[in-house]
């Protein structure tokens, strides 16, 4: 099985930012993304989207360059005022050309 190295970037954020964040990562070059509902607690606590009750967890498989662009954009735009955390992992994908 031919596998390609790729980056899995994960963004956990208040649900209110769903649309903005998906637009952002697509703009920065992600070919797709996957969203799951999540809840959680962190150091900053309360958010306005409490009524919708949950965070979202946004995952995208991208190459290193796109990952960097997304990381920079997310931290510049959202880290100060919103409940957002981001991390990356190394993964191996089948048919890497599709995502990278």
């Amino acid at each position, binding site marked *: 099985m031919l596998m390609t190295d790729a980056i899995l970037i994960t963004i956990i954020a208040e649900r*209110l930012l769903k649309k*903005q964040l998906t637009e952002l990562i697509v703009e920065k070059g992600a070919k797709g993304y996957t969203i799951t509902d999540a809840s959680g607690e962190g150091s900053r*606590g*309360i*958010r*306005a*989207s*409490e*009524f*919708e*009750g*949950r965070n979202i967890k946004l995952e995208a498989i991208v190459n290193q360059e796109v990952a960097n662009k997304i990381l920079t954009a997310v931290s510049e735009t959202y880290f*100060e*005022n*919103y409940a957002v955390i981001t991390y990356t992992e190394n993964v191996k994908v089948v048919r890497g050309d599709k995502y990278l």
Partner: protein
Amino acid sequence: MDALISNFASPIVLAFVLGIVSRLVKSNLELPKPLYQSISIYLLLAIGLKGGVELSKTSFDVVVWPVGATLLLGVVTPITAFLVLRYMGRFDMDNAAGIAAHYGSVSVVTYIAAMAYAESVGLQAEGFMPTLVALLEIPGIVVALMIPLLLSTGGGSVKKAMHEVFTGSSIMLLMGGLLIGFVSGPERFASVEPFFVTMFNGALVLFLLELGIVTASRLRDLKKAGLFLVGFGIIVPILHGILAIWLGLLAGLSVAGAGVFAAMVSSGSYIAAPAAVRIALPKASPTLYLTASLGITFPFNITLGIPLYFVIANWMGG
């Protein structure tokens, strides 16, 4: 006094209390989020539909003045709230505007509780009240979000916030419901009436149970919010309520109508406004604006405020 006890002993208010208590004893009771969202959707659509059907029976002359009064108060109340917060409370620009946006808009559940209260004391507010709710939802938010823009601070996206407000699901459902009800008229509405009218109060019990749970988790934030905000969350609504009664009666509303109108105008939004403020004014603290509107004003209104507005309305217009 009797009115007060009667209000406290209604299943709707008691369900709210049950929600608070269950959170205080650390029960794991909670409504599934989709149920909560479903009931919200149902309540908003039902209010719109009922309002639309009533509107289709009402002549233009009768509604035009109350509509005017609503729009006027939608502009005035966020400004008074802003001024009090900024200059008496010394809140910074973002927080003052953010909280003001909530008080310029309306809490639909407070409106419903006021309607239920009216019914329980044998009064009947005008049928077109839901029209006023729908109209009151938006302008207060718009006006409040304009303030920091005019005074040129901000930083968030007001444009995105406006789109959020106008196409938000609560406006869609209220306005959509109004139109559907208006176009359908009483006869075609009859087949869906059992679902949207007869079941309404029962569904509200479940909704207030959850709202009690959410409110209780706000209560621990009261300390962070500070004494000024607590006072603000009680006194400003009373003043807005009195203003609403006066204008409402002038505009031709009945005593019951003026009481419900006061409850609407005095209330603070906690669905449409938070979402818009979070986007337009990201530096404003959700803790402050949600604690004020949901943790202070909402419980005050549905327990003491509503009966009070009715007493005042009766006294001013009876």
